[in-house]
């Protein structure tokens, strides 16, 4: 009897610690793969994806079109083709309020504003932006107020405009930057940029603050990250294109894990282009070189 009690006392802490341990471990559960639109036209090297509240828009880059899927929870339906002559080569998307979308065209390097139904509203026309006058957008994001944050590869800065393109402010890249490929904003207004070459994330605590190193020393875990998403808990999802993986960082910038791997089969990714996160923690990846879109439940 005494022995049994002793054994139980020894085992009890393990059982108590187990749920806490499991809560910290993040899992990526493959949910679905999307290969085609409603007309069974296959996707070709899709590079961008935007998660709206009721739909997701895919930049079907190789086919020079968009495909809009209706979203019900984690299920994607339909798949309506949208061809826009103003955006012949979409490479990156970002969802804005009311299911509107910003789309970056790789050829013209202009940011187009699309309505919720995918129709072309107009280009983002920059107004009163300080020199250099030319802007080469590499990526963009929007904050809760619908202000647009643009990575300007030419001017080495993040330009902040309102949704019509009127200049609000700018934040220069850090001097020692390699190549900045994406920008994200957290719910508290912190602005993050991703340095693909140096494997670093910089953060500006607010729009008026300069960028400071936030997560560095990631070179061991990062090959060439190209896309960044932040969840409501402040965790950062880096999509590593050349390593075909997702790197998860904690809210403090600490390395939390390396997920997914290179390959062709379901659940594997191949030079992904962009990822977006839905409100119910589904990570949707434009699996570029697999010519498909994949959905992963982050648990």
């Amino acid at each position, binding site marked *: 009897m005494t022995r049994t009690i002793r054994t139980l006392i020894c085992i009890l802490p393990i059982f108590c610690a187990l749920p806490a341990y499991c809560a910290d471990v993040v899992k990526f559960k493959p949910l679905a793969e999307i*290969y*085609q639109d409603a007309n069974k036209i*296959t*996707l*070709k*090297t899709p590079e961008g994806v935007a998660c709206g509240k009721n739909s997701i828009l895919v930049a079907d880059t190789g086919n020079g079109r968009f495909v809009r899927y209706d979203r019900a929870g984690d299920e994607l339906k339909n798949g309506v083709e949208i061809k826009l002559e103003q955006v*012949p*080569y979409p490479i990156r998307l970002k969802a804005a309020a009311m299911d509107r979308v910003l789309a970056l065209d*790789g*050829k013209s*390097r202009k940011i187009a504003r699309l309505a919720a139904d995918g129709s072309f509203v107009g280009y983002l026309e920059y107004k009163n932006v300080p020199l*250099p006058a030319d802007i*080469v957008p*590499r990526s963009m994001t929007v904050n809760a107020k619908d202000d647009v944050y643009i990575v300007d*590869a*030419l*001017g*080495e800065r993040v330009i902040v405009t309102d949704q019509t393109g009127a200049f609000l402010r700018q934040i220069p890249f850090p001097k020692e930057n*390699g*190549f900045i490929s994406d920008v994200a904003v957290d719910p508290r207004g912190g602005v993050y940029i991703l340095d693909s*070459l140096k494997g670093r994330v910089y953060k500006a605590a607010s729009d008026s603050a300069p960028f400071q190193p936030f997560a560095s020393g990631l070179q061991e875990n990062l*090959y*060439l990250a190209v896309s960044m998403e932040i969840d409501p808990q402040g965790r950062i999802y880096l999509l590593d294109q*050349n*390593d075909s993986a997702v790197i998860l960082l904690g809210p403090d910038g600490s390395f939390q894990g390396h997920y997914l791997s290179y*390959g*062709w*089969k379901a659940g594997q990714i191949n*030079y992904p282009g962009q990822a977006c996160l839905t409100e119910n923690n589904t990570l949707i990846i434009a699996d*570029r*070189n*697999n*010519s*498909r879109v994949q959905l992963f439940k982050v648990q």
Partner: protein
Amino acid sequence: MKIRSITLLSAVILLTLGLQSLFAATDQQFKLKPGARGNLCMKCHNTFQEKVARKFVHTPLKKNDCTGCHNAHTSNHGKMLSAEVKSVCSVCHPPMISATAKSVHKVVAEGNCMKCHDPHAAANKDNLLMEGKLLCFSCHKALGEKLAKVRFRHSPVEKDCLICHQPHSSDKGPFLLKDDIAQLCGGCHKTDKPIFIKKHMGYPVAGSRCTGCHDPHGSDNTGLLLKNVHSPVAKRMCNQCHEEATSPTPLKTKKEGMTLCRGCHNEMYNKTFEKSRMHWPVVSKNGCLGCHNPHASQDKGLLREPMKQLCGKCHIDTMKRQTQNISKHEPIVDGRCTECHDPHSSNNMFLTRKAADFDLCTSCHDWSQHSTHPIGEKIRDPRNKNLSVGCGSCHRAHGTAFKKLLYYPTTTEMCIQCHEQLKR
């Protein structure tokens, strides 16, 4: 004053005597035979007699103190050294790399002192293995061979590399240079002399980086210009790109960024921008100058560096993967990146010159020599219905850790990825 000097001298003498007696005591304690720290060694190692006769002898050997570096009984290190080769020299010699060094000689950083110095004796000062530039060219062979062939050699190179370079590390410049490039060159080439001003078309280049145009060692071009010279520079038409030499801002370019380059390279500019996928550095802040030197270069296309190094500066992971390859893909090893990729823009993924990988690969690889596995647009990949089977379905062009650039260690493992029914 005199008393103080005498006191100091006495102290030194006493200390010396003390140390000698300590050694003597140790020698007695271990019952060492006279000369056991060196002279005795020579009885067996008699070839050292020849070394000792050389002009420059390493101090411990001169003092017959072989135990200064070697352990007479046992050692974990080669040549019975009392410490690792890397650290044995630093027991007596101060560190050769300063804390503020801008450049460090690789052999010094690696602690390979004996690549240049003989630890016992040599015919050359500082126990150098060879004299002057001969020693340098024993490693820097390519430079030595090049200098043997070129028409014009920079006169200091004929004498001694150490006129311009430091042997161990430099606090002042890159490439172990004794000073900042402009200042180092200016030490001999007086920039205020009329001939200098005339040769540089009156432009104030005293503070410029001379090696942007000139090869500091030697060249087939007059004025030691680099191998490939940008046409306006060769024609001495600096004002084609820069403002006039007499203007208040003579070094300023007439236009900013790639707009300036477009003035002459319009056709190339249009071809670049009519394609869908742009190499991002082209449209970044440095534009053309991110990869090209506007004045002159040793490399074709006025590249800032040989292609392998230049591309590898950004594509670090790609180059790293290549180093891990068992089978090497020749164009990558040789740095011929543009054989497959367009460095400016392309309509294809990875900026390749051809859309389909089998079209690209067969421009070098004879398909008839390969297996008869069907490939092409119509052959679907069983692993992913949206993909067709191409060379890239089995091989990774930039390499893997396995033979023949395969994704898996054995052919069988590779094949069963698709042919699952054959899996055992």
